[in-house]
């Protein structure tokens, strides 16, 4: 691929815009011939460039995606005619928190923590796309391991999952969180 007048950053933006699902810098490299290291540098810049815009670059693990700015959710949901308010039960949020902070983990590991059967809750979170199968555990029966998804990052309006507060920090603020 000759890049005489090519602008790799612009190309990466086009690819992110047009991709049907989150893409990795490896996939961008395959489509452009640009080195992964350079792509990562551009991705960082793109993230910066779009920080104040209506389109944002978000990341989950190795994967990147353009999404709408979370603070515009109300207007966007109005245009799309979609319900914004979540209907996750306390039990579902609890399970989601366990998965977010302990991923990857199996269903029986979730149940070990919650002390109750969590079959239908896990199923519900899977259907909603907030969690997904991320592998198999190398133990008897090779049980499925679960982790959070890009939808999870979007659902919480984050740039990246790492921006969730640490579990240890959360337990310090007893009352504060309630008043939010």
């Amino acid at each position, binding site marked *: 691929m000759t890049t005489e007048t090519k602008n790799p950053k612009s190309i990466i933006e086009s690819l992110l*815009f*047009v991709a*049907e699902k989150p893409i990795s810098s490896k996939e961008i490299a395959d489509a452009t011939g640009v080195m992964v290291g350079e792509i990562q540098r551009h991705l960082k810049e793109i993230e910066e460039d779009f920080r104040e815009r209506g389109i*944002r670059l*978000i990341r989950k693990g190795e994967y990147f*995606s*353009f*999404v*709408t*700015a*979370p*603070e515009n*959710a*109300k207007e*966007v*949901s109005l245009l*799309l005619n979609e319900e*914004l*308010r*979540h209907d*996750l039960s*306390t*039990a579902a*949020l*609890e399970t*989601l*928190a*366990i998965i*977010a*902070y302990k991923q990857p983990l199996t269903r029986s590991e979730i149940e070990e*923590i*919650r*002390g*109750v059967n969590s*079959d*239908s809750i896990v*199923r519900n979170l899977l259907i909603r796309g907030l969690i997904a199968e991320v592998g198999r555990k190398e133990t008897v029966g090779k049980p499925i391991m679960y982790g959070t998804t890009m939808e999870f*990052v*979007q*659902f*919480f*309006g984050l740039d990246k999952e790492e921006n969730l*507060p640490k*579990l*240890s920090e*959360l*337990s310090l603020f*007893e009352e504060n*969180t*309630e008043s*939010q």
Partner: protein
Amino acid sequence: MYSVRDEQFEGPLDLLLSLIEKEKLDITQISLAKITGAYLEKIGEMTGESSEIADFLLIAAKLLYIKSKELIPGVETAEEEEEIADLEERLREYQAYKKAALHFDGMLSTLNRSFTKRGKPEVVTTFSPPKDLDSAGLFAIFSEVMNKAAEEIPEQTEIKTEKKVTLEERRTEILTHIKNSKKTSFRSILASSRTKSDVIVTFLAILEMIKQREIKVEQDANFADFTVSGLR
């Protein structure tokens, strides 16, 4: 937020934690001993499936051990001590996740969420069928998926058909048992129990009745059967 759930506990840990938090206690052995009574009371009111109640009963047994230790010092065994420490640890961990869930709820209530592009795919769609697949293969895949989906449903209905056993029911049963034969043995009371959780319910009922001074239990030798007799 907690008041709504008061009636419906997600499990024994949830119940334990809410009792501890209601009393504004820390997670310690002393707190656990304190709320044992309230915990047993809640179990007594439960009318769920016995398989679900069994989870609650296992924890109840641990609480009763802590309580008994308080009343009769010197009965500790290393193994049981470890189990108690383990229970405290599990409660602390569970509490941390409950706080995280509450925080998640707070984050979501801001309604700040990102959306992906909805536009139709920009590419001109080109018909690209999967390789090495014919209609028979496609139908085989379909059958497999539908079978898998069907398998997941009956499980839940099965549980519901199990017999329900409550503490109160068992207490009444034991009382009739004693009334009829004045004195009876622990073994003969247990004889009617079919499942592990039945046994635990029976045992808990006996403990509760001792506490309420409704019955008296005597044992002639270590590991021998107990004699159960009425006090009223």
